């Protein structure tokens, strides 16, 4: 293997290499790190970010960005929790719609999809830059969450709903199963479907994709809609895990998800990246958070370290891109 191909291979597996090195270092530094309980704990913790990051990957691959995922997470969880707990009263009909657990899940997903669709429409039909459109949605969704909850947490959602966030199947936490299923679905979507190929084409060169006859706007709307739906899944998992929908849920989560996508090697310019890279990015952030916590590093320093890791990842990506050109 010559030096050039070695460099190519190293770049290809740089995220995996970083993860392996981190696991090795943290295992040596803390005896509590590489245990079954802690591993399951890390997987459960990253499952939320993984759901968000899968959607974020699709959006970034299309050349966009979605800053609203944290707020969408909060609103989807709050609406699902509110309906599950209190139902929906229709005084004029003297009726109360008592929503079941599957009903709450469907409504929560629906909320995420509607907000995602609205993001897509703002970006495509109104030609707003994705940064601005989703920043607006970040504020709108957070405000709607406050209005819906009155600023108070919605608690006491019952064991059936709680199972989604705290249950186990075959010894593995349910959120991990759900996120693994979503990873599989996103892998199929991006690798085995025409939509996936079109997504890369739109992100790589939107003009060329348009001239090739692709329905660029429809693809983008669909991407934001999927991003919203995946943020809603994360919202349902957070709510179920805490048995509470808090108005401040998901604050700042968009940064963690963007970080995971970037660390996983997806280009912020769009058109280049992979779902598996994002999985690695989430694992790196999850392992980093967990390891720093086990090593009793102050939360303030944890923020600094995470920021530095993101900068290093982006710098490595840029350096690689320059070499390619």
């Amino acid at each position, binding site marked *: 293997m010559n030096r050039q191909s070695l460099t190519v291979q190293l770049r290809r597996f740089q995220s995996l290499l970083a993860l392996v090195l981190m696991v090795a270092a943290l295992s040596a530094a803390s005896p509590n790190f590489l245990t079954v309980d802690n591993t399951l704990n890390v997987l459960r913790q990253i499952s939320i970010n993984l759901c968000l990051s899968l959607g974020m990957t699709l959006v970034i691959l299309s050349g966009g960005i979605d800053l609203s995922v944290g707020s969408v997470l909060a609103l989807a969880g709050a609406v699902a929790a509110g309906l599950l707990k209190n*139902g929906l*009263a*229709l*005084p004029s*009909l*003297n*009726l*109360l*719609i*008592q*929503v*079941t657990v*599957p*009903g709450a899940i*469907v409504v929560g997903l629906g909320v995420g999809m509607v907000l995602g669709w609205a993001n897509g429409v703002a970006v495509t039909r109104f030609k707003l830059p994705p940064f601005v459109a989703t920043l607006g949605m970040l504020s709108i969704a957070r405000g709607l969450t406050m209005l819906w909850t009155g600023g108070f947490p919605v*608690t*006491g959602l019952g064991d059936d709903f709680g199972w989604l966030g705290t249950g186990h199947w075959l010894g593995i936490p349910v959120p991990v199963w759900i996120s693994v299923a979503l990873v599989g679905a996103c892998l199929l979507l991006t690798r085995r479907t025409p939509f996936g190929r079109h997504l890369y084409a739109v992100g790589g060169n939107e003009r060329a994709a348009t001239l090739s006859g692709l329905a660029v706007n429809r693809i983008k709307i669909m991407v934001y809609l999927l991003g919203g739906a995946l943020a809603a899944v994360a919202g349902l998992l957070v709510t179920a895990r805490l048995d509470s929908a808090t108005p401040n849920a998901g604050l700042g989560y968009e940064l963690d998800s963007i970080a995971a996508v970037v660390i996983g090697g997806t280009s912020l310019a769009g058109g280049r990246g992979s779902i598996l890279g994002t999985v690695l990015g989430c694992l790196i952030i999850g392992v980093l958070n967990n390891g720093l916590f086990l090593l009793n590093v102050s939360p303030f320093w944890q923020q600094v370290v995470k920021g530095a890791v993101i900068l290093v990842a982006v710098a490595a990506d840029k350096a690689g891109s320059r070499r390619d050109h």
Partner: protein
Amino acid sequence: MKRVLLILLALGLLAGFFRLVPLFHLVPLRQIQALAAAGEFNATNAARAFWDEHLMKSLNQAADVPQVLAALAADPVKARTQYGRTLGLSDSTLFYLHGTGRVVSVKKNGVVLALGADGTAADVLLPTGHLFGNTVRDGTGLLDASAFPNSQYFNDLSTELNHLVEASVLPQLRALAAPGVTLTFTGCAEVAADETELKPLKIIPIAVQLAAAP
């Protein structure tokens, strides 16, 4: 045509699924409102019921103050485990205590007692002002937060228990307290993790009376 059939088939399957797993139920609103009114949590009633049916019957479970103070001075960690309880992530320890002491002084914020009939030191302070916090609710260990459907109910109960102490115990304490009088008391105390100076130990009284003559 094939596409339409596939869509119809998918909708049919979906309808069948949701028939088996319904998304919602329709219930008459008045029926629900009546049920809610019947089962609504009333913190005042709950606090009164707890006070009469559990708290007043548990006074003999409280630990002896001189014994606990001596244990805290000798081995604080062991004493906190043996006599106290710590809730959740809090690093304070709550104690349920009983004792007898001679009133040394009556201050604006409470009554200072010296333990034992002949004591003179300021060992215990029984506060007589407004009560805040959850010491009364949590100090006895008789109430379990998980038995309440939400934390708001649990907090409301705490407020009502404090009101009960303010309304029924503190006036009696103020009336009885005079320097030289010997009082028997039962109450709850909270000791922070880093608290080393325990005298006077602040104990919120839940029962107080004149000590029987020796």
